[in-house]
């Protein structure tokens, strides 16, 4: 369990993080979603103590804080951050990287082989990383962190440069780690993917962490709240408003129109569908708003 | 290509290491100009007391000696050679007292020529060169003295025939240009070559830190290498700027001398003079050839071994290799003229001193350029082949 208490970071007078207080629990995958430059990496760097916050503190398991070097070592034993792929040693093999991480964190050696197998890296793991492609390097970085087997794992842009198959593969491993009781904090721009496995998702804006639920109540409820229409012309939208005047219709900057259908029963919902069909709308879905929509709503609304 | 050149050039001069090299060169040139140059004491200095003492002793001997049948053969010999010798010493004394430097130069020229003739040819074991050469442990003092006397003779002959302004500073080779000449004869070429190595050592491999930025440039690897080499060559040549600060300091203190001053060149046992201007140009050209050689060598090592430390070591090996095999007269056994490393003492090659030491005639300016140029071409050729292989990656 890792707790951030009143963390504040300022760079040249600008608030990057403003009084952030949050608790991350074991067996939880946390998603961090925010446009570039809003402080995701800064937050992770603060958790790793790579950056000293101007105020506030990080508390691990109720007791450990970055008060001295000894504690920093203890915390690093339990909290790891995924390495940058540009920092890999080009002249040694992927396997040796894994060995380094395994021995540094003194983790179970068997993890090396199992991770290689799970990520399908067997064919190239013995080659020097200098010969790897972007995706291979990214997988290796991820594998290194998995091998380190720490209680808390911070992953910045973990899905960068991966093909859909591997995105899926890594998602599964993340879920597995979660079931092992790890705390995984993921920053990602693959919102659809994140939505699938993250337990809690935070937006960041103006140096604050905002839980997605707070932006859109009912985001994590299991009921039909919204009809998403991808292409709704203004004309049809007008027509729709006339027909269902009490409905809240919003068009987002990503082109998606959201029709609030809360408290509708299936009959009235059918009417909405009928209307859309009559007006030659081919793409729409019924359910709730997607993370992408919230993202657009939250960051691009002026 | 021009844009890339500008890009590399800018990188070169914003590289902390390169700036540091320039600063260090500046420091050394100032240190030399302010601390070392003033304490320079040439062995062949203009020393009236010394001449006078020698002249008076010999004059006294000549006045008192009586030659008869019982005279020791050395005394007899001395009595025959001292009159002419003293005549020159007398001229030197007189002319320096009257500040007639031209005449002094001429008398000194004759004095050195005559002295060497006497000491080298007839004086084995009882006539000696200036004691400055006979330091403890120097087994070649006579050879050194022989060279220095002929050198001085030729030099003074040049002074007496030339049109340059003469002064004691010129005679003792203390003016800025002559100091430069002396330095070229000593460690300056090594310093420049080492600087060139340090400039070039990372010019290819520095890009490893941001490979993606540069991999996609629409320029072949070979062209990029050439541009890098060009920038490094330019940077190495510009190393002359900080060094010239020291030269200006010396010039302000001791005068600059002029480009027509003579520099004696040894060839086949004899000396002939060229002007210092010509000497400097030849040196410059030779050093530029060295730069090209070193740069092509390091480009070659950079694309084959791809390790900065290796670059540094290989470069240094080429600079110091000569110390390992150098020995006086060794050219009889080995054909040293075919090793590029034999030419590392650029000034000594051009003045012929290296030939004198090795006991050969083959270490000439022309041979040097030929060997260095050929080696550079070979290195560049292999670099070209390697950089054009399909699987080759520059970084």
């Amino acid at each position: 369990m890792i707790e951030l208490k009143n963390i504040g970071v300022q760079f040249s007078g600008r608030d990057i993080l403003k009084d952030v207080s949050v608790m991350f629990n074991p067996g939880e995958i946390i998603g961090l979603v925010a446009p570039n430059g809003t402080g995701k990496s800064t937050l992770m760097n603060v958790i790793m103590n790579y950056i000293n916050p101007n105020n506030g503190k990080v508390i691990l398991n109720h007791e450990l804080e970055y008060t001295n070097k000894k504690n920093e070592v203890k915390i690093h034993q339990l909290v790891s951050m995924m390495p940058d792929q540009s920092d890999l040693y080009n002249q040694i093999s992927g396997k040796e990287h894994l060995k380094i991480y395994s021995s540094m964190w003194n983790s179970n050696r068997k993890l090396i082989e199992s991770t290689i197998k799970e990520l399908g890296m067997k064919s190239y793991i013995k080659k020097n990383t200098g010969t790897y492609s972007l995706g291979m390097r990214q997988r290796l970085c991820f594998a290194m962190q998995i091998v380190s087997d720490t209680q808390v794992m911070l992953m910045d842009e973990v899905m960068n440069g991966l093909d859909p198959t591997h995105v899926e593969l890594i998602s599964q491993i993340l879920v597995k780690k979660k079931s092992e009781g790890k705390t995984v904090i993921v920053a990602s721009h693959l919102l659809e993917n994140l939505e699938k496995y993250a337990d809690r998702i935070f937006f960041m804006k103006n140096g604050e962490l905002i839980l997605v639920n707070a932006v859109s109540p009912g985001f994590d409820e299991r009921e039909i709240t919204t009809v998403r229409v991808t292409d709704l012309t203004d004309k049809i939208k007008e027509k729709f408003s006339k027909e269902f005047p009490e409905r809240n219709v919003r068009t987002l900057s990503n082109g998606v129109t959201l029709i609030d259908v809360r408290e509708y029963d299936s009959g009235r919902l059918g009417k909405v569908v009928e209307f859309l069909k009559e007006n030659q709308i081919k793409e729409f879905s019924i359910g709730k708003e997607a993370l992408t929509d919230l993202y657009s709503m939250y960051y691009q609304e002026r | 290509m021009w844009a890339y050149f500008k890009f590399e050039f800018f990188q070169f001069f914003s590289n902390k290491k390169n700036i540091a090299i320039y600063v260090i060169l500046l420091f050394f040139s100032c240190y030399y100009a302010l601390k070392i140059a003033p304490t320079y004491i040439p062995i062949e200095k203009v020393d009236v007391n010394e001449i006078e003492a020698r002249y008076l002793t010999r004059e006294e001997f000549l006045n008192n000696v009586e030659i008869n049948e019982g005279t020791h053969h050395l005394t007899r010999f001395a009595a025959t050679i001292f009159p002419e010798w003293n005549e020159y010493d007398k001229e030197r004394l007189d002319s320096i007292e009257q500040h007639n430097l031209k005449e002094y130069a001429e008398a000194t020229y004759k004095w050195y020529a005559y002295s060497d003739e006497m000491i080298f040819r007839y004086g084995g074991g009882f006539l000696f060169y200036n004691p400055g050469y006979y330091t403890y442990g120097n087994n070649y003092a006579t050879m050194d003295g022989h060279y220095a006397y002929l050198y001085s003779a030729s030099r003074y002959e040049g002074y007496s025939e030339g049109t340059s302004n003469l002064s004691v500073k010129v005679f003792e080779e203390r003016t800025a240009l002559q100091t430069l000449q002396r330095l070229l004869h000593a460690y300056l070429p090594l310093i420049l070559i080492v600087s060139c190595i340090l400039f070039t050592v990372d010019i290819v491999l520095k890009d490893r830190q941001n490979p993606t930025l540069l991999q996609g440039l629409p320029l072949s690897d070979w062209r990029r290498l050439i541009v890098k080499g060009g920038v490094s060559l330019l940077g190495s040549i510009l190393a002359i700027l900080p060094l010239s600060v020291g030269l200006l300091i010396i010039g302000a203190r001791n005068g600059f001398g002029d480009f027509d001053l003579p520099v004696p060149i040894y060839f086949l046992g004899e000396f002939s003079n060229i002007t210092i201007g010509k000497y400097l140009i030849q040196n410059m050209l030779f050093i530029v050839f060295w730069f090209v050689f070193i740069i092509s060598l390091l480009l070659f090592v950079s694309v084959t071994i791809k390790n900065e430390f290796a670059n540094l070591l290989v470069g240094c090996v080429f600079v110091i290799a000569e110390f390992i095999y150098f020995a006086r007269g060794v050219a009889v056994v080995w054909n040293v003229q075919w090793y590029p490393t034999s030419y590392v003492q650029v000034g000594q090659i051009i003045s012929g001193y290296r030939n004198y030491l090795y006991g050969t005639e083959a270490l000439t300016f022309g041979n040097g350029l030929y060997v260095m140029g050929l080696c550079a071409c070979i290195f560049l050729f292999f670099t070209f082949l390697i950089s054009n292989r399909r699987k080759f990656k520059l970084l």
Partner: protein
Amino acid sequence: MHMWKILKTCFILEKSNKKNIFACIIVAVFVFGLVLFVKTEDLGNTIKEKSGEYQSLSSALSKFQNVDATDSGNGSDLYKNLVLQRHYVSKQSMAIKMDKPEMYLDTAILLVNLRADSFDMEGFQNVASYLPSKIENQLDSVFYQYMKKTGISLSMNSLSYFQFLAYLIGVLGSVWFIFMSIYSSGVMIEDFQHSSLIKGYPITFDKYVVAKCISLMLIVGVFLLELFIFSLPLVYFKGLGNPSYPIAIFIDGTSEVYPIYKYLGLSLLYMISISIFTILLSVIFNVLLKNMYLTLFLELLLYIFPILFPSMISLIPFNPFNYLNFPNLLNGQMFELTNSVDLNSTHGLIYIGISIAIMVVAVKLFLTTGKLKKV
């Protein structure tokens, strides 16, 4: 336990570093080159050395007018002294040619004593450059007296294996710091290029540095081993020689005789201390300057600083950089530079040791992994 896991990491990295292979090759080339040099120059050949000495004395004498050199003659004391010296030197040459080491040794002792007298004579300054220095003579004196006392047979031929090792370490020792600073100048920079890995390691920076030093020191151990291995060809050419053949050195302001193995031991101790010193210095400069070449230049400047400004040596005798050229310290050349007996070789080791301790403490106190920046 902690240490072991970092060491394993360091080994994996050093194993793949081309730099180490190159450094090993260079050391080997250096040793081979020196073997070659010793062979071509015929170093240690007493006949050659004596003929040089004879020439020097002759030219020293040429400074005087030829006069009667008998005791009752009217030449100056110094003149008579030099004439006698020359006589002894030629006698030594004869002794070598006739293979009479006894006679050579006796004459050598006479010669050394004669020289000792000459230093205080009037007019000595004029001929000083033709003669060995006072300290060299002092070392010779101790050496020959020791030889006489113990009866070890004098080596008059070129250098054999053990003598060559002593010579090799003398040459290498004076450039050892330079070599080590080139070798270690990038020690941390290479890691900074992988900062996101290193920053997160669950170990303190000082432990990491110590592990790094240990792994580098193991490679330095390989270098030192190479010296002994690649000199072995000399065993074939010149024989093994006597490992307890004496060498006269300057220890703590007095001249003493050490057997070669002891001298080698002392030199190795110095070289190892200097290696640790240089590596730590490189670590600190790397962190401060974040540039491999600036580190190298700064180290070399610090090294030549006492040589450029000799007055600084007596001003700050505890400056460890005064002691890095330990062969000069041991053969007394440093004393001639400084004209003071402040530079004590044992103190030198202590100062270097203290500097190492200070640097370790500094690393422990001031440097952390967390704040490393990528370069």
